[in-house]
């Protein structure tokens, strides 16, 4: 289950935030926000994607740049919502 979720998020990040011929390799520990792959504004669309996919509502106080800074961090966040 966790591996499926990781793949889902990685695929989304690749599809939506990287150019088609981008050389960046993304894995579950790749920094997303602090690397600039996903800027703090675009984080909202990533959050919306996750909320929609898992039918949850992430409160603002939990939607920090650190919580979204890697797929692993996002998985940790999702555990709080019993998604995994």
């Amino acid at each position, binding site marked *: 289950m966790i591996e499926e979720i990781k793949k889902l998020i990685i695929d989304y990040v690749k599809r939506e935030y990287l150019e088609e011929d981008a050389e960046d390799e993304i894995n579950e520990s790749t920094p997303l926000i602090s*690397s*600039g792959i*996903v800027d703090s*504004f675009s984080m*909202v*669309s990533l959050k*919306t994607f996750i909320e929609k996919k898992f039918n949850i509502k992430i409160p603002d106080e939990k939607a*920090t*740049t*650190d919580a979204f800074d890697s797929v692993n961090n996002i998985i940790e966040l999702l555990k709080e919502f019993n998604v995994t």
Partner: protein
Amino acid sequence: MSNIGSYEKRYENFDWNISAQELDYGKDGMYNIAYYCSDRIVEQGHGEKVALIWQGFIGETKHYTYLDIKIYSNNFARFLIEIGIAPGDRVCIFMDRLPELYISFLGILKMGGITQPLFSAFGEDALFTRLDDAQTKAIITTKKHTGKIRRIRDRLPALEKVIVVDANEKTAKGDEIAFNMEAVPKVEDFPVFKAGPETPSVLHYTSGTTGKPKGALHVHSSILAQYITAKWVLDITPDDIYWCTADPGWVTGTSYGIIGPWANGVTQAVFDSGFSSEKWYQFIEKYKITVWYTAPTAIRLLMKDGVAAVKKHNLNTLRHLVSVGEPLNAEAVVWSEQAFGKPFHDSYWQTETGSIVITNYPGMKIKAGSMGKAFPGITAIVVDQKTFQPIKIPGTVGLIALKPGWPSMFRTYWNNKVMYDAKFRNNWYICGDRASIDNEGYFWFVGRDDDVINTAGHLVGPFEIESALLEHEAVAESAAVGIPDSVNMEVVKAFVALKPGYEPNADLELSIMNYIRKKLSPLAMPQEIEFVDSLPKTRSGKIMRRLLRAKEWGQEIGDVSTLENE
């Protein structure tokens, strides 16, 4: 003792010649910004001094001395001439905060070109609009951003050259030109273009309520204001390590991320990274940053992580903190005193002003939440919103107005003199912001006087967003307004009426968000979308954004007599 000393004395006795004399501006007929930011520092015997400390996201670092900056900018200048770029041509820089951005900026100026920096997160539509308007002849970029350029290039016949600074002859595609500023033979001496003080130098695009973004055109003598404001407001001295967090795609990143600091011969640090409070504090600690110029949005993000995160680091080198981009709230000033032991000093200016015009000065009493006072040499007042007559009663809200004539004031909007002329009333330049002045001469920001959205210190035009929204297959009509946000001051909210056959749902919401993000920029992406059956319009069919905005801000909606369905 700060560089400015007594603000009152400086204000009384100010003359822009102070700046000209310190720079020896115009010596031997030289007025070119690039000379004063590189060659001059080398001639003063500081060629071995570090001009730029650069760190990338994964921790890689590079150091460039003033001699390096001089030679590599010479390399760029010579190369641009060799490929057919002529003085007056617009040359866009479109890349992340890499050393080549800062150095090519000077290289373009050295050969007489007009440099047009654009934010690298711009999507292809935003990029197209600005390149098309400026009839840009060349663009300097990196492999990461070539995809966006390739998708619009056939619609940009004026764009003759695409220069890729991290490509080589094998990886450059089509007629794109690979250029590595450090690999080509060094151009030790280059005859810097003999610009006049009024020769165009920098073209920065900014957004308005209506129409396309406008290119604010600056000239070489802007350096007189950028030099002296960097010295007196940012208080930078030759011994400082200075960090400006702004991206040079925006005016702060060029006026105070290139021209101001380098004209002062200071060492500046650049961190090409996304936001992370921990990484920012590590950066300050590692490079012993002394003067820090950042934005209220960044400060509020740092506040979210608390004082404890600050105290894990030794940040004692910080001696002066300044912010820009949007009003600095009083809480942020108080917090910075708790966190760093010193307050952030708010500064106010615009793309059009080219340099700081109202600010809090080192040593001056800070009134938390105030914009501060006018810079010496700047006459700033507030005027009545209807008559444009000066307001003399303290505390009365009016429009901020500046007496034209300071050196870094924009000279026109590119190809748009009508819009330029409209910025002046009764011989005052009208900034478009509302404020009041208290009985001690401090300015207090109230808000914009138009529909432009100030998000994280960047102006976003609602018209550009609405135009892009209409290109989405599901959107029938739309309105974009700024709504309150605790971190970014404002964020974009879109009201969307759908075409028949489309139903509001989360998938569509996400699709619209990502569409705007890719077409325009993450800043323009609606952080919230409200689906509506129809939008409020005047009887003549114009969407009344004012009503939508007032509702979001909990304000009185005012006169609705022209509303279509009233």
